């Protein structure tokens, strides 16, 4: 919210420098996002009295002698048509900063520094300035809009700084107002805080006005949706004379960026800025049926707002109607049909409170957010509704732009705008803070904040102003006290009365961290990807129409389509990460992510979906192959104390012959495989990539071992190498299992060589294994191991038709 210092000073005699005020506001909960002097870009401008002014022949220029008081008298060339002897104008001295303008003298094109110059052979030391060159508009200073020199008042003293004359020494604060303080979304609201924090009195604006005996006979206001409009005040003003607003009002509006339109419209805007209560004025002539009706819109009902946009409404929108038609979109914008024109002779002023969520929903649904809707969304209090109307009517009187009738209708639900009494225990207030704030300070602070406090024993009784809807119980009082008393009074303690608790991670969290660290030890880098992905990601991995992964939860209001579905698989994000790396020239690497996939029981969601922690690994580069990835899978098994087995499988996005399901016992817990070539091509991958996914949540439900110790064998073991010949269809896994099941002393089987080719029969292949045998309770005899080998060979022959290679 933009707050001009000069406007604040209307209500508080601020006695500190702007920067100090900024600090004070910050300390009591109002962060000043930006504070700047209105004329921050302009410097070195003084009052110049033109003492001589001679035209330069054959040009539009004049050469002038300009008296700048103590600064001296300078020769200045000037092209403005209103330069004249005896005139007082802003003089930019050599070295001054002013706005540079385009050829039209109106468009600002940056800031420039004034240098000594020569025009048509005449020295020019300085520049006489227009309003635009000083950043002063017509609304900020009467006459400043003239396309020529800005004329300074006759009493201006030559050589004096121009800034105070033009109000360029004013300051603007951009203050951030927290959602609990809607009462501070106005200059007056903030002024109350400034008065409190500076310990100064608040000067309330004038609310008085003279009501005439004139009445608008038969005029009625009815509210059929009191839930959405708990208070509606209408007041009839006649003998309206539409015209410009006074300079002081124009200037204030201009300082906060609000254009001046006409006296009546400006009054509504001024009151909104001053009091925080949005107001509206209807041209009474266009109000049919002598009535205002506040009701829900009909489905399909249309309204054209002041900015000539047509909207189609429904029963969720609230409209202000006359006896016949909608004349305003409540809380958002007035209707075009009843807008104030130059010919307007009578108006109906509206000040109302609308339900904040209804206005928010309407503003959002229609994509129409206005200053008024923003205020209603945050919350307007009925105290301000009542006082804003008084203030507007006062301004009608003060500006003399109309007569205040005695037709005043206030439809409300009986909410009081008087202060409400609240009693709290001082002990409890101090217990929230952990310090004892002296009673005197509590009294002083609460008094400054208009709470009219009284302390009796431990009981603090306050009168909560109706605009402080946020005050609910003693913690609110504690906050009021400490933000004014100062947070630097809070002394650090460390829960002296709290019970001891044990902390840290649980077993599952520890195991997940260990898994991550073990993968890092294998050269893999952890990634974090968004929990949402794109529908095109599902196509990337070629999922069929009926694939369960397509049953993804959709975000109703995604940032864009790319981020619109909750992930049902982590693979696409990983593939995209690999592709991004390759585009950046990282042609090899190992990545992993532990994230959730989201499985909905039904769509749209009616209950919490299943959030499944899932591990995804992606590796790529010339050094990688299926088995290096399988090595990582084996590390996962080792870390989590489970055993994996693998069986060939096909997926829609991996190599048909280099893909396996990962099984833990009988349960499929994941897959791994080489990324299929068409997918790699779509991603512009330059090296082969491999991907793995394991459902950790599922794996956690399966039986697992734990860290344990097995005594070392008492007697030395032995090993034998066996070169075997078998059908090409026999797998390594089958051979290993067959060997291990044939002999309980065979503890480990390791493939060390493979051969297919001329030296063995067609359709056959050779695989060579090292089999390690462990001795039991007694040492191996001379033939023991040979006996084992014989038994193994017999088993291999019987089950898999495998022979020893000759």
């Amino acid at each position, binding site marked *: 919210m933009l707050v001009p210092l000069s406007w604040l000073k209307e209500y508080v005699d601020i006695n500190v420098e702007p920067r100090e005020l900024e600090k004070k506001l910050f300390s009591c909960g109002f962060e000043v996002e930006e504070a700047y002097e209105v004329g921050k870009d302009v410097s070195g401008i003084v009052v110049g009295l033109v003492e001589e002014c001679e035209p330069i022949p054959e040009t539009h220029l004049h050469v002038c002698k300009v008296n700048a008081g103590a600064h001296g008298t300078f020769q200045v060339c000037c092209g403005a048509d209103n330069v004249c002897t005896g005139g007082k104008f802003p003089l930019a001295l050599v070295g001054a900063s002013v706005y540079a303008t385009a050829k039209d003298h109106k468009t600002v094109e940056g800031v420039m520094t004034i240098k000594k110059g020569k025009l048509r052979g005449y020295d020019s030391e300085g520049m006489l300035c227009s309003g635009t060159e000083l950043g002063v508009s017509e609304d900020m200073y009467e006459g400043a809009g003239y396309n020529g020199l800005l004329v300074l008042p006759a009493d201006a003293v030559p050589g004096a700084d121009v800034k105070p004359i033009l109000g360029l020494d004013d300051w603007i604060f951009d203050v951030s107002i927290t959602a609990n303080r809607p009462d501070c979304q106005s200059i007056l609201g903030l002024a109350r805080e400034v008065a409190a924090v500076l310990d100064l009195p608040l000067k309330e604006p004038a609310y008085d006005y003279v009501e005439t005996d004139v009445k608008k006979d038969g005029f009625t206001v009815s509210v059929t949706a009191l839930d959405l409009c708990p208070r509606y005040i209408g007041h009839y003003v006649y003998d309206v004379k539409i015209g410009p607003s006074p300079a002081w009002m124009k200037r204030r509006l201009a300082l906060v960026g609000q254009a001046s339109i006409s006296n009546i419209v400006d009054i509504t805007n001024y009151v909104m800025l001053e009091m925080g209560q949005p107001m509206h004025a209807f041209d009474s002539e266009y109000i049919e049926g002598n009535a205002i009706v506040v009701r829900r819109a009909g489905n399909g009902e249309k309204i054209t707002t002041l900015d000539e946009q047509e909207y189609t409404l429904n029963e969720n929108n609230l409209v202000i109607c006359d006896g016949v038609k909608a004349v305003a979109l409540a809380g958002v914008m007035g209707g075009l049909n009843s807008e104030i024109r130059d010919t307007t002779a009578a108006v109906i002023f509206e000040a109302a409170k609308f339900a904040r969520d209804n206005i928010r929903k309407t503003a959002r649904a229609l994509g129409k957010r206005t200053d008024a809707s923003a205020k209603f969304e945050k919350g307007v209090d009925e105290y301000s509704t009542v006082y804003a109307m008084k203030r507007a009517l006062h301004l009608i009187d003060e500006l003399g732009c109309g007569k205040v009738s005695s037709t005043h209708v206030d439809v409300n639900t009986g909410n009081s705008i008087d202060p409400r009494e609240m009693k709290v225990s001082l002990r409890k207030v101090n217990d929230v803070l952990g310090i004892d704030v002296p009673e005197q300070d509590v009294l002083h602070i609460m008094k400054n904040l208009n709470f009219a406090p009284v302390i009796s024993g431990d009981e603090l009784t306050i009168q909560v102003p109706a605009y402080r809807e946020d005050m609910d119980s003693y*913690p609110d009082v504690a906050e009021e006290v400490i933000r004014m008393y100062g947070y630097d009074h809070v*002394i650090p303690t460390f829960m002296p009365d709290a019970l001891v*608790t044990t902390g840290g991670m649980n077993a599952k*969290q520890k195991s997940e961290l260990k898994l991550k660290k073990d993968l890092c030890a294998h050269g893999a880098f952890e990634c974090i990807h968004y929990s949402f992905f794109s529908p095109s990601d599902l196509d990337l991995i070629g999922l069929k129409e009926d694939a369960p992964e397509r049953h993804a939860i959709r975000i109703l209001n995604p940032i864009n389509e790319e981020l619109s579905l909750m992930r049902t698989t982590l693979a696409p994000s990983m593939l995209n990460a690999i592709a991004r790396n390759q585009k950046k020239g990282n042609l090899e690497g190992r990545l992993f992510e532990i994230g959730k996939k989201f499985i909905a029981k039904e769509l749209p969601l009616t209950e919490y979906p299943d*959030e499944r922690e899932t591990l995804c690994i992606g590796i790529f580069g010339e050094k990688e192959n299926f088995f290096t990835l399988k090595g990582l899978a084996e590390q996962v098994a080792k870390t989590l104390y489970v055993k994996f087995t693998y069986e060939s499988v096909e997926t829609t996005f991996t190599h048909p012959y280099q893909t396996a399901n990962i099984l833990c016992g009988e349960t499929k817990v994941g897959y791994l495989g080489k990324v299929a070539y068409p997918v790699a091509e779509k991603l512009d991958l330059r090296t082969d990539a491999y991907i793995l996914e394991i459902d950790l949540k599922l794996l956690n439900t399966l039986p697992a071992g734990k860290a344990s110790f097995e005594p070392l064998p008492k007697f030395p073991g032995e090993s034998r190498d066996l070169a075997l010949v078998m059908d090409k269809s026999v797998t390594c896994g089958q051979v290993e299992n067959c060997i291990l099941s044939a002999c309980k002393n065979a503890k480990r089987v390791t493939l060390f060589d493979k051969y297919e080719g001329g030296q063995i029969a067609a359709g056959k292949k050779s695989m060579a294994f090292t089999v390690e045998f462990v001795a039991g309770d007694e040492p191996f005899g001379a033939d023991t191991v040979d006996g084992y080998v014989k038994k193994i060979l017999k088993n291999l022959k019987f089950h898999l038709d495998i022979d020893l290679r000759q």
Partner: protein
Amino acid sequence: MNEKFESIKNEILSGIEDLQSSKAVYELKKHFLDSKSGKIGLLMKEMKNIAPEERAGFGKGVNDLKEWALQRFAELDEKIKAKELQMRYEQEKIDVTEPATAKKTGNLHPITQMRNEIIDVFAGMGFEVMENKEIENDYYNFTALNTPKDHPARDMQDTFYLSPEFLLATQTSAAQIHTMEAKKPPIKILCPGKVFRSDDDATHSPMFHQMEGLVVDKKITLCDLKGMLDVFVQKIYGEGTTTRLRPSYFPFTEPSVEVDVSCFECGGKGCKLCKGTGWIEILGAGIVNRKVLSNCGIDPDEYSGLAFGIGIERATMLKYGINNIKLLFESDLKVLDQIDNN
């Protein structure tokens, strides 16, 4: 005889002069000292031709010669071995500035590293680490946290909706409610998690990480909040770091504070990082709103609590000087490789 001994001596001395390898030494040694065929050994066979009275002298002469020869060969052996060793070393000379062949290890994600660092500090204070849901319902994300449907605070967080009822968690605070419903005080929990808001620019990502902390016990005060956070910032940002509380607003705490930490770059003097203020905003906190306790069935007259929420991305970016939040989610190995405070 002495001439013979002398000539063998000379023969050995001249023989050993050119020897270059221990193999050649061995051969020459064998030539003289082999017990059967060695020249010195053969001398013994001449014993029978020696006059008996001279035999003792001859025998001693041979033995002396043998001793002498053994010593020469031993000396030579030592010299040559040393030379050979030297040569071997020289052959194996390497350029120590060539690259290492160390096995490359990966890193935890910078967010995980920061998260673990924070967990470590609070775990030591007795905080238990909880799990967080990414998909929440309206009640837990808002209503139970004192943010009813018409509350403007809902606008502070641009929410992603999945259905009228379900949404993506906008804050980790929902875990507070789940915990307090399931567990009675004393409660000290940390809830790290992913949260989501419809915001996307250089400092905002639609998904980011928060760490919620909650303490519920008897007589918990604002002073405790300050004391606890002082310890926290000293552990994370170093001794001498202090905090500053200033008023703020969150629906689920009252009073609410914004917590600034004294700038760890300049120590509070004012620099680019702290934009000249000497302070850096790091987290939001406050005393748990009584309504939130009541919503969870905890008697707010008996118990009080404090809560805080840390943005992990922000903490990470501040710590490492990362200027764009997107870098944390792009998985660029050149980025991930740099942050290795695992």
